[in-house]
């Protein structure tokens, strides 16, 4: 296996809404990540991106993203209908084949284009579940209810997740929501989808994340302390809401096992868990201990730019390796209702 590292990243400021087009949002971030790496577009061997037509409200919506890349002369480029973190996975595979040495991957999307909770309903079984229109937040609330009643999580634990993430976001200029809330205030707040309160739910955002990865010595030449991808794996589980565990995440556990999470301690974990109860389930599934700092960025709870939130976790984890505050970090991305699909990446500094 070739050694591959994250050597640079950039994120747009997450906003609740924007009047910019997706392409206008993208160009400054692409330029920024290249500048952060001291690279130009001709240094990039492969471009790969993640976005979603239904979220944008336009078929082939990814095509206009190519306009942001200055794809002339023609480039090697590909697209996934998924979070940019999966674009990173495709680029990592391509590097392993030896065809390329560097890749720029990104995810972009405007959650504000439509009612995101309703749009996500379209992911469900189109014959017997979707037509009932259970929206994403309601589905998450069902899972939270099951977790509470089985004792796997408590209301207080959920409030603690909300408190910690929002406090962490105070030092993240990219976050959309931040604040210093007491547990009492959090637990007394109005329910929006029982048992979920507003701050148990993600701060949906319009955003962009871009990351550059490079192989071996190329990476060493591009960054003082590259964030080496020591393990990366993704797994999926059934979507069948009536025939699936509500209180465990077997796909996350399996991906973590395949990625070698347990081989050594994890200093920092950035988890793409949009709801507070899900962060608790995930922490357990990944086998993270109390010694791990979780979501120093504020996580997807404080900024959830659909289609780039997962890649943003990778960027945040990598940043802490690169700036020396962590030696071993975990980046995670998820997709689908009840965190149906999980991508886990272990990063290490040399």
């Amino acid at each position: 296996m070739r050694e591959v590292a994250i050597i640079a990243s950039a994120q747009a400021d997450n906003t609740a809404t924007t009047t910019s087009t997706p392409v206008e949002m993208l160009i400054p971030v692409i330029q920024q990540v290249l500048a952060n790496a001291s690279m130009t577009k001709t240094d990039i061997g492969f471009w790969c991106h993640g976005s979603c037509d239904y979220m944008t409200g336009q078929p082939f919506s990814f095509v206009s993203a190519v306009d942001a890349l200055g794809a002339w002369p023609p480039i090697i480029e590909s697209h996934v209908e998924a979070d940019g973190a999966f674009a990173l996975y495709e680029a990592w595979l391509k590097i392993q084949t030896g065809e390329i040495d560097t890749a720029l991957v990104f995810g972009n999307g405007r959650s504000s284009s439509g009612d995101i909770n309703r749009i996500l309903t379209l992911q469900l079984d189109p014959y017997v579940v979707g037509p009932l229109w259970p929206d994403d937040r309601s589905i998450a609330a069902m899972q939270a209810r099951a977790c509470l009643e089985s004792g796997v999580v408590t209301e207080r634990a959920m409030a603690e997740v909300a408190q910690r993430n929002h406090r962490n976001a105070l030092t993240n200029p990219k976050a959309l929501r931040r604040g210093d809330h007491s547990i009492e205030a959090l637990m007394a707040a109005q329910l929006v989808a029982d048992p979920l309160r507003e701050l148990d739910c993600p701060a949906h955002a319009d955003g962009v994340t871009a990351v550059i990865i490079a192989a071996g010595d190329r990476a060493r030449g591009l960054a003082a302390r590259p964030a080496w991808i020591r393990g990366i794996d993704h797994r999926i589980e059934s979507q069948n809401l009536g025939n699936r565990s509500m209180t465990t995440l077997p796909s996350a556990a399996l991906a973590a096992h395949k990625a070698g999470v347990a081989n050594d301690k994890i200093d920092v974990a950035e988890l793409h868990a949009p709801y507070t109860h899900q962060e608790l389930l995930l922490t357990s599934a990944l086998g993270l201990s109390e010694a791990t700092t979780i979501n120093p960025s504020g996580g997807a709870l404080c900024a959830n730019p659909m289609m780039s939130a997962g890649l943003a976790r990778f960027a945040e984890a990598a940043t802490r390796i690169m700036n020396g505050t962590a030696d071993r970090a975990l980046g995670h991305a998820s997709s689908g209702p009840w965190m149906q699909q999980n991508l886990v990446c272990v990063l290490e500094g040399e």
Partner: protein
Amino acid sequence: MSDDVLRIRTPISIKYQYSAGPRVSSHLLGLMDGRFVGKRCPVCELVYMPPRNGTCAKCGALLGEDVEVGQRGTITTFCVVNVPFLGQTIKIPYVSATILLDGADMGMQHLIQEVDAADVRMGMRVEPVWRPREEWQPSLENVLHFRPTGEPDAPFESYAGHL
């Protein structure tokens, strides 16, 4: 078997909000004023009308200064549409053409009318027919269609690079 449900109809209705983006605003405001306003790429200096996405796709750069281009233009290529489809609002057969407006470096799509479809040619010179001013919106639909000006056709070399 006759009681089996083989197909179901599941209506989907989702509302979206689209942004033209700040960079396209001057173009749309120009249309509200009966003018074709494009933008120039600060890197390659080519003029785009309309300023697609506010970017120069070749350079990957945000477009810069506003540039007004001529009302008249040259048909670089076209097709005669004979097929009806859902959402189509124009009567068939009609001519859809790429028009290189004077001063622009990339063609734009629009309709050609007031001429027999069989007489439309590459190189034909055309001018816009605007709707009544009181109907104007921030949209290229303010122009009903383009029609021949009667000028001699533009020479092939003048638009060959834009095919």
